[in-house]
């Protein structure tokens, strides 16, 4: 098998940490190589070394058998390596063609040759089975389609190797499927793919080889067909994992939250209730209105009709501060967007919603008290950070998520809404988050979990509520819930009689 790219013995030091320590990656011509590892294993650093964004401290990169040195992404691009980042780099108010050729506009006589650019772009779009004209604005596209535009961009640069960093993280199932089809076509054209994902199922579906990293080290390279999921997880975390979802049964208490006939800007006819010590999972496809429902309850979106009762008492919640006063806390699905303040420290993030309780004389924040409480959460949640003054952006996804949950917990909520609590979180931290959720349940907290991962929903919830088109299409007890039933409700072909009230 021909190695188009051979990276070995890479060492990269950052102040205080060795991010890569003998990392290795082979990219084979016309094959899909999975790059696997927990968050913080060094995958992103590896990508940045590979594309010349970072300089390595030691190691060799061979491209087509020749040793090479990339000084910056421009040079790696010229060599045919393109990377599609997890956060897409597209400009919404420019057309598809302008985005594809951004910085490399096709010109004639010092003027942009629009016809040529649109034509070229249309050809690439067609190849990717995209129905859009390249004159459309990128802002109109869904996230999945935007991803395709990134791929189109890579193809327009004549990329031979395309690196995809968590490409399906925000995609719906159908979008994922069409992405896979495109990958298969690219491979058929002898292009090589490096595929980074937390979703192990996808690895088995689309990848030929897998490279596993841990703590910046190379652990294993294997042919995917020869290995099992357990094998990968074991290599990734360096320990055996069993009981991903240790469900605990607790006695359910009184009804703590009842939502009655709730309609609003982004939700319609919502009826459900939640007991103390109960976990209610909300399933549904992207765009079904799950996050919107959570944010309506939390007071971010206006409601037009209906009532919310907490402990039997009607409440009127019009803002997050009123929600928090009523002991409802919400942990966002989008840590970087509206969940955390990346420029602030672990401590400042964690206490932001609860500063009132640390206020002492002359409105002074009692920092001693604050630090004690933050410290407690850091150790209880096993948050890995050198100090509590560390900027949150320097933490791994899993640890960031734990801080986000700790922030919600610090407000002493009775009702906790977790929106995609394990998105972008590695396997080890996932388990820890599940354990924490179960502990909250044990303490009698009422919990709502929104998740796109079916095993997570099925594994944790006491009841599962499915949403489709802004409303509820089914509520199942976990004994009667199956993946098939949930999926049918999620795509709107089945509507279960709802026995609430």
């Amino acid at each position: 098998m021909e190695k188009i790219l051979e990276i070995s013995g890479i060492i990269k030091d950052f102040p205080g940490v060795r991010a890569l320590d003998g990392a290795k990656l082979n990219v084979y011509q016309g094959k899909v190589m999975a790059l696997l590892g927990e968050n913080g294993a060094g995958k992103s650093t590896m990508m940045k070394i590979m594309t010349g964004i970072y300089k390595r401290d030691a190691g060799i990169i061979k491209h087509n058998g020749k040793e090479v040195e990339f000084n910056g992404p421009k040079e790696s691009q010229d060599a045919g390596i393109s990377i599609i980042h997890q956060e897409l780099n597209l400009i919404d108010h420019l057309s598809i063609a302008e985005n594809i050729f951004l910085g490399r506009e096709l010109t004639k006589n010092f003027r942009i040759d629009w016809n040529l650019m649109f034509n070229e772009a249309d050809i690439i779009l067609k190849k990717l089975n995209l129905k859009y004209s390249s004159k459309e604005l990128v802002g109109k596209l869904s996230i999945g389609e935007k991803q395709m535009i990134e791929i189109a961009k890579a193809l327009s640069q004549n990329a031979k190797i395309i690196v995809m960093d968590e490409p399906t993280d925000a995609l719906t199932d159908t979008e994922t499927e069409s992405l896979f089809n495109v990958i298969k076509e690219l491979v058929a054209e002898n292009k090589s793919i490096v595929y980074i994902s937390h979703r192990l199922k996808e690895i088995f579906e689309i990848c030929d080889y897998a490279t596993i990293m841990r703590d910046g080290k190379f652990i294993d390279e294997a042919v995917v067909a020869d290995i099992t999921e357990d094998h990968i997880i074991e290599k990734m975390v360096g320990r055996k994992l069993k009981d991903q979802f240790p469900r605990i049964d607790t006695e359910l208490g009184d009804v703590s939250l009842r939502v009655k006939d709730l309609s609003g800007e982004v939700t319609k006819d919502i009826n459900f209730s939640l007991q103390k010590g109960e976990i209610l999972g909300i399933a549904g496809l992207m765009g079904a209105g799950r996050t919107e429902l959570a944010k309506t309850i939390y007071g971010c979106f206006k409601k037009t009709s209906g009532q919310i009762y907490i402990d039997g008492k009607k409440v009127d919640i019009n803002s997050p501060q009123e929600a928090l006063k009523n002991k409802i806390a919400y942990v966002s699905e989008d840590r970087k967007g509206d969940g955390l303040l990346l420029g602030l420290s672990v401590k400042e993030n964690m206490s932001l919603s609860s500063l009132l309780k640390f206020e002492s004389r002359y409105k002074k924040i009692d920092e001693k008290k604050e630090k004690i409480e933050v410290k407690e959460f850091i150790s209880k949640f096993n948050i890995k950070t050198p100090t509590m003054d560390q900027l949150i952006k320097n933490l791994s996804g899993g640890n960031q998520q734990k801080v986000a949950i700790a922030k919600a917990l610090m407000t002493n909520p009775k009702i906790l809404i977790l929106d995609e609590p394990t998105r972008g979180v590695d396997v080890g931290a996932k388990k820890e988050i599940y354990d924490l959720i179960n502990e909250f349940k044990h303490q009698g907290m009422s919990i709502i979990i929104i998740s796109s991962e079916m095993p997570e929903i099925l594994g944790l919830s006491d009841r599962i509520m499915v949403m489709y088109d802004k409303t509820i299409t089914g509520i199942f007890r976990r004994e009667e819930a199956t993946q098939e039933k949930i999926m049918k409700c999620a795509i709107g072909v089945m509507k279960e009689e709802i026995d609430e009230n």
Partner: protein
Amino acid sequence: MKTSAALNGTTIKKENKLLKNKPLIGLIIFGVIVSILNPRFLSTANLLNILRQTSINAIIAAGMTFVILTGGIDLSVGSILAICGAVSASMLAGGVNGYIVLIVTIILGTILGAVSGSFISYGKLQAFITTLVAMTLLRGATLVFTDGKPISMGFGENAELFDIIGGGYLFGIPVPIYIMIAVFAVCNYVLKNTKFGRYVFAVGGNEEATKLSGINVEKLKVKVYAISGGLAALAGIIITSRLGSAQPTAGTGYELDAIAAVVLGGTSLSGGIGSISGTITGALIIGVLGNALNLLDVSSYYQMMIKALVILAAVLIDRKTHK
């Protein structure tokens, strides 16, 4: 307050503290050079003079720091200063008690700031355009109110307090310097030690996330512009009392000096990063620079150019270290 990196350990922390004080280091180096070129620079009289001259800009810049930390900007401070100065002078001339004038004027400035803040928060307007409108409107209002002529505050008994504010000395030090120090002590306390201060940094860092954390961002922004307006009014009082009269064109261009001081002090114009101690250093750099160029007999035309280049250099250095 917050420089990036800091991957771990105390060594890096110390390094950060040094970097953080870059404006201060620059100020000291600059001071040493000037004092070698002209020993008169270091005389007590001259240093007090610098501080007194700096106090106006510094007080405005303190308020501006709050606004910029939230990611906003306040262009209206110069005009608020002018109209508040004019109103205070005419009240004094009309025989109103000095203390009442002081309080009423500061409240007026605070309200004017709050009005801008309300348009920005609840009207969802951009801070730049809103305060630009306020700047123009209030300058016009000042000209109407004063009829384009200076208003004398008179020499009545009620003006005595004002004489002290602008021209008085306490233990040989001009009163405006005390006021400046008090303003900075309070602002520093508020930003560093209170809930409100944390929220100011949070809003500048990520407004959506701050909202979702249960903080009333709208109200907070109104407050921030109110603080800026109130401090501009205080600066207006000092100028008026120092001159004994209110000039209709007072404070023209002061908003830019204040913004320069804030940015020189290492506060990011996009919000979320910065400190009040940086701002006072920034204001001092501008003050010392003007004074030094005067002492060195540089023509005022060249002074402007040099000032501009110093600000450019300082911001460039800051960018390098913040990155």
